[in-house]
């Protein structure tokens, strides 16, 4: 039995929306093992974005406990959450979220810059990551000189650069055509085979099926399997 990398117990999150209290997350229990490839599916408004934000340490739960990679993160301060994001999580966004003024290589370097890695080592590691996603030759290109698929690869390289414990992909194929989507999904699957833990958030069942385990979320409640 592999070790659990994410353990959530009774996580709740509520929002005030026009005077109404919305239970975005309603007593969520979730355990994800190391090396797993889990997809979280749900329609918009189901609370999957909120769940992703909490898994990604971008937001804090109102109540409940959340243990990520052996450390409790549900009560940490912003400063420490930033550190956790930097060390343990690699983000892959729907719209890539690359910095337009920087080259692909510099974008990949970014998490290492915030970690304080020395220039020489940083460049070498960023180059390795770009090579791993097959974009070695595009290192000096800027995002607007790359296709959508290539930009997402750069984003994946950036997520890998920090050697995080989990890759958190939020609709990674949402802005791509089906051919490129397949390429990106193949890349993620390959990374999973190399032992990466991947959490994929999507509303697309086709994409969700590429994962080894699917969890669906609806009205802030989780269900195992893809019952939407």
């Amino acid at each position: 039995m592999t070790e659990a990398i994410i353990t959530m117990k009774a996580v709740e999150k509520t929002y005030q929306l026009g005077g109404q209290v919305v239970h975005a997350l309603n007593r969520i229990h979730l355990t994800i093992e190391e090396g797993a490839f889990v997809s979280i599916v749900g329609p918009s408004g189901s609370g999957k974005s909120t769940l992703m934000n909490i898994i990604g340490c971008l937001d804090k739960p109102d109540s409940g406990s959340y243990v990520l990679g052996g450390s409790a993160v549900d009560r940490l301060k912003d400063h420490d959450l930033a550190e956790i994001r930097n060390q343990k999580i690699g983000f892959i966004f729907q719209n890539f979220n690359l910095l337009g003024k920087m080259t692909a290589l510099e974008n990949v370097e970014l998490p290492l810059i915030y970690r304080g890695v020395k220039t020489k080592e940083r460049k070498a590691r960023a180059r390795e990551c770009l090579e791993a996603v097959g974009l070695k030759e595009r290192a000096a290109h800027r995002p607007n000189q790359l296709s959508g698929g290539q930009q997402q690869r750069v984003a994946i390289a950036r997520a890998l650069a920090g050697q995080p414990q989990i890759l958190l992909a939020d609709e990674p194929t949402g802005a791509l055509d089906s051919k490129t989507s397949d390429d990106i999904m193949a890349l993620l699957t390959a990374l999973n085979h190399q032992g990466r833990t991947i959490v994929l958030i999507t509303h697309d069942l086709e994409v969700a099926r590429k994962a080894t385990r699917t969890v669906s979320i609806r009205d802030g409640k989780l269900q195992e399997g893809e019952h939407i």
Partner: protein
Amino acid sequence: MNVFTSIKMAVRNIQGNKLRSFLTMLGIIIGVGSVIALLAIGQGSSKSVADSVNSLGTNLITVNITNTDTHFTMDQLKQVKQATGVKHVAPVLSGRNTFQKGSTSTTASVTGTTSSYLSIRQMTVKEGRFISSLDEKFRQKVVVLGSDLATTLFENQSPIDKYVRIDGANYLVVGVLNSKGGSMGTSSDDAAFLPYSTAQRLQQTTYITQFYAQAENQQSVNLAMAAISRVMSETYSDSDDYSVVNQQDVMEAMRAVTDSMTMLLTGIAGISLLVGGIGIMNIMLVSVTERTREIGIRKAIGAKRRDIMLQFLIESAVLSMLGGLCGAAIGVLTAKVYELTAGATIVFSLPIMTAAFLFSAIVGIIFGVFPAYKASKLKPIDALRTE
């Protein structure tokens, strides 16, 4: 994240927005440039004033008599000469008269004085001689010309033993002085000197309104001034009727004027630096809004509040320091151009340039704090959501 990487990022961001960065810096450029240029020009002019005052000799004491009811005479002046610490005295009667030589006609200042004047004012004779006590005694119609006036009237000829007409009467030129340069708008080169008695007749006065005294040395200036005041008080009961001033006093008065001018200019320049700082803050605030998404990405990737704060602070500091450097260059250039075109003295002072530059950097940092704080406070999820 280390500071060096932050500076590199800041420079890159500034490069990416060249026009905007330049316009942002303009306030600082103008501020620093004007501080440096104005102070260089101001200090230059106070230096040239100080030089010209010093060239009159630091032992010089000037006495002005404002009371015209009780007349001061040559006999009383002789008493002044006997006073302790006084080496020489020379009465001064100033006027402007018309000079004529052949078809050349000009006006120049005329000073009626005695032979001591030459040594008191530290002047030297180029040709011929200065006024003698005999000229004074016999009211000789002789004249000594300043070098410029001599050139104007006689061109390249020697004026010695030639006649020049002053207000219609003929005067014999007995000497020409060496050039001494101007002091405070008056030039002793474009002037003529007559025996005092002759000048009195020319200007139609009989009493003395001004005289120079020379102290024996610099230490005895105050002693001599006290002695002169004592003699003066025998004739004039009211001390407002006359003034006894030495060069130090003149210099201090001048310095007070130039100092307040400098203060004023610095104040104005300081205000423009302040306005420049507000300009930087404004642009940095716009920049924070524009780059909300970038901030969100950086935060998601692991940037701490400190990192974001530092990034924006360094950016505004680099912006203002760059402006400070450009401003310093432009200030030096402006002062140089002024020096060449106006022929004035300019004095650059490194401490002032450094201070102006540092001030610009401080302005950048102070006005960068608020936008940087605002940027650092953004929540990553909100920042990522903005388009």
